[in-house]
């Protein structure tokens, strides 16, 4: 069941109607049942790995907790952490990466002149496995570190993992923030309802009106036979807006739905295309994933506490794995490595950039705008690596981009600008207004807000593009 499906439009009001009538414990049980239904409606068979990994994590966490309470040495509880890691990463590796590594090994051996017929299982990827695996792992690692207490209530923990708004495409909620919200009674305030509706409408607008309409302009660009530089450039701009609106739209709907039930999810996007450098970009883009990798991979590797070479290595490894997390394909690995290289480059150039920054207010503004523009284009090139289906297409698209403009098709650019304009306008308001809730100004009367929401609603219902699955569902 996708957020932009007919089933979800009927499912959500039904869930909310029952949810508001129930007391706290019953609400939790009901949400659990609704979440299982939500996931099973995609494919009930994949409930098995989800429930198995969650059950193992639950018992491992309890064992680690009792080991901590008994004052035993960390090595005693490490084995339970290892069990949890092996289970979660094993399932993720099997479902997501088995065929990838098997196929890659086969190609490598073939290249070396050997004939090898390795297994490829053609396993179907359970939807959301990358997201719920990381959510569950953060719980067991935090319990191992003694940062949170293990919950004795299995169903509460299960709800934390399986709660439907964040189950299939995040944001990757940490148990330390979500578990207390499950355990303690929630009160849905009027502010939460308004903000929830705002987020849902804005999320659907981004997804259905902007991303889906732009998908018409991007679908045919990223192929082995790259078109003219004009199409590649505008197609890449369109894809940059599309992927942001697709994923940010999903996250906003998830956060809005959670708010309607009294839950608070973490912010996942904070105007990423206004980033001035790659470090800033990763503090604004998919924040729940980048902070996860920071806390559970980059910092344990040594973070930036060691010398420059080691820090560069840590950055490159972390970002390459983050790239691989997105999908079992080499172009995702390349995309991750590219961002790792940008982060290393930024660390190296930062002192120089600080020295040459202008001192005057106007100069600073211009300098910031230039850096934002440069970073946006670097990010856009990254999207070519991300979106192109193969290595030859990456080469063809890059070559086309630098091969000169021979075609000018105003209509193609016009529609991209039309569908990108609302996002640019609203993000300008968010950026310069300093708040993401862009209608939260006392001078805007309630009637005017209602009218703006009505326009959003109309465009979502009547002017959406051809329905597309969320891009991040495949991850």
């Amino acid at each position, binding site marked *: 069941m996708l957020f932009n499906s007919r089933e979800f439009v009927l499912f959500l009001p039904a869930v909310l109607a029952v949810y508001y009538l129930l007391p706290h414990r019953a609400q939790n049980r009901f949400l659990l049942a609704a979440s299982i239904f939500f996931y099973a409606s995609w494919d009930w068979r994949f409930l098995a790995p989800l429930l198995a990994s969650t059950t193992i994590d639950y018992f491992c966490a309890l064992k680690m907790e009792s080991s901590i309470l008994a004052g035993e040495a960390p090595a005693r509880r490490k084995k339970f952490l290892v069990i949890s890691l092996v289970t979660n990463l094993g399932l993720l590796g099997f479902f997501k990466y088995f065929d990838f590594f098997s196929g890659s090994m086969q190609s490598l051996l073939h290249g070396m002149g050997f004939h090898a017929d390795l297994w490829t299982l053609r396993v179907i990827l359970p939807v959301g496995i990358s997201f719920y695996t990381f959510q569950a792992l953060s719980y067991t690692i935090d319990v191992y570190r003694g940062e949170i207490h293990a919950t004795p209530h299995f169903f509460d923990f299960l709800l934390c993992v399986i709660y439907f708004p964040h189950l299939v495409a995040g944001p990757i909620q940490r148990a330390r923030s979500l578990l207390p919200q499950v355990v303690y009674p929630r009160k849905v305030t009027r502010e939460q309802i308004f903000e929830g509706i705002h987020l849902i409408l804005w999320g659907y607008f981004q997804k259905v009106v902007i991303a889906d309409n732009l998908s018409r302009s991007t679908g045919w660009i990223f192929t082995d036979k790259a078109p003219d530089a004009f199409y590649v450039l505008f197609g890449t701009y369109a894809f940059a807006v599309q992927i942001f609106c697709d994923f940010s739209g999903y996250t906003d709907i998830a956060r809005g739905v959670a708010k309607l039930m009294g839950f608070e999810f973490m912010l996942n996007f904070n105007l990423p295309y206004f980033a001035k450098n790659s470090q800033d970009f990763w503090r604004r883009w998919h924040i729940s994933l980048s902070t996860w990798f920071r806390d559970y991979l980059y910092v344990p590797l040594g973070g930036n506490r060691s010398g420059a070479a080691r820090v560069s290595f840590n950055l490159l490894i972390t970002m390459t794995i983050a790239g691989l997390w997105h999908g079992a394909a080499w172009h995702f690995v390349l995309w991750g490595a590219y961002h790792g290289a940008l982060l290393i480059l930024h660390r190296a150039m930062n002192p120089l950039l600080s020295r040459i920054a202008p001192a005057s207010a106007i100069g600073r503004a211009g300098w910031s705008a230039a850096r934002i523009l440069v970073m946006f284009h670097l990010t856009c090139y990254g999207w070519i690596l991300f979106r192109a289906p193969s290595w030859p297409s990456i080469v063809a698209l890059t070559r086309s981009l630098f091969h000169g403009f021979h075609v000018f098709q105003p209509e193609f650019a016009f529609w991209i600008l039309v569908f990108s304009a609302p996002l640019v306008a609203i993000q300008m308001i968010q950026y310069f207004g300093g708040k993401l809730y862009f209608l939260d100004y006392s001078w805007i009367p309630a009637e005017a807000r*209602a009218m703006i929401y009505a326009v959003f609603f109309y465009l979502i219902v009547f002017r959406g593009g051809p329905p597309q699955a969320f891009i991040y569902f495949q991850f």
Partner: protein
Amino acid sequence: MNRIPKWRVVACALAVMATLEICARVDDWLSFRAPLASRYGFELLYANDQLGRTGAPHAKFERFTLNSLGYLGPELRTGTIRIACIGASETFGTFNSEDKEYPRQLERLLNQAMETNSVQVVNASMPGNSLHNDLKRFPQLVDRVHPDIVVLYPSLAIFGWAVVEAKLQEQRKTRLQPAKTTGPPPRPSLARRVAGRLIRTPRAMIARVYVFLRYKLLAFSPTPPMLRLDRKSTDVWNRLEPRAVSALRFKASIRFEQWRTRTFFPHISDDAAPMFRKDLLAAIDVFESRGIRVVLASHANSITPSGDPFELLRWSTYYPYTNTAGLLELENRLNEVMAEVARERGALFIDTAHRIPKDPRLFGDFVHFNDEGAAVMAQLLAAELRPEIEKRLADRANR
């Protein structure tokens, strides 16, 4: 947070409604250059004259633009071989994109094949029209269009309405005529009279209100619904409504219509085939007496007895006076009648019902072609009509 005054809530609700309606109007204007202020709906395409309902000259609604004669498509060209396609919504192209309805595709195919521009196909159909009701308009059509060939592709379920109408008229006549009895009729008991009134009066009242709402006030009233949003939201609801709910709604509407008209044929009505035959013969007479070649095309659909029961149910809402088996029987029998009449009168018969695959990918629903289906229909007609057109072109050249 402070309490929100009630008037503020009402003001917000009104603002939302007004904004949605303005959006709908601006959207229509941007998409179809529709007027911002006046009414805008499918009924704009219809006009009424002394012969009944017809296409309104120069009417425009969404992708449909009627010419000065009230037919869908461009104005008539002189010096062409004219083919008039007569039918209902299947021919009109309710489920087709602009210029993709089968008459338009047929014209393109024939002109391409002849490498000329000397064939014009006139789409002389209107949604909801039946052969029975169109009969009296055919002389007018001949006078206006002067067709060389006429393709009749009647909607059979719609034809069935004529049978029901005839039955209802018969019922009314029987009620008005005094019973032929020798003595005074026995007076029913008081209990029977009260019971009869209790059953009959609400039924009659509900039926009257229903007819008034559906056929007078909402559908064909001179002041149709003012809100554009109403039309658009109906389309959205039709897309959103779960199949189970739609099925229940369809069943209820079918039962209600049977109850309202007290009409149900478990099998095809005895009157249907003879009535259809009579109308077909009358139509052929009108055209052949003026030297027009008549082509009969049987009615195609995507339904098989083992096919999707939901689609069959949906189709039944258009002809609720029988069950689904009866509907298929009606369709098959009337197609047979068409073949028989064509044989008797030497008209060209194209068995599209059997030659167009019952493939849902060719249909927008159960009987209406989508663009691909219309292309198949056009190819079939073009292949059959090509020798006739070539002959006529050669005759013209010799003259």
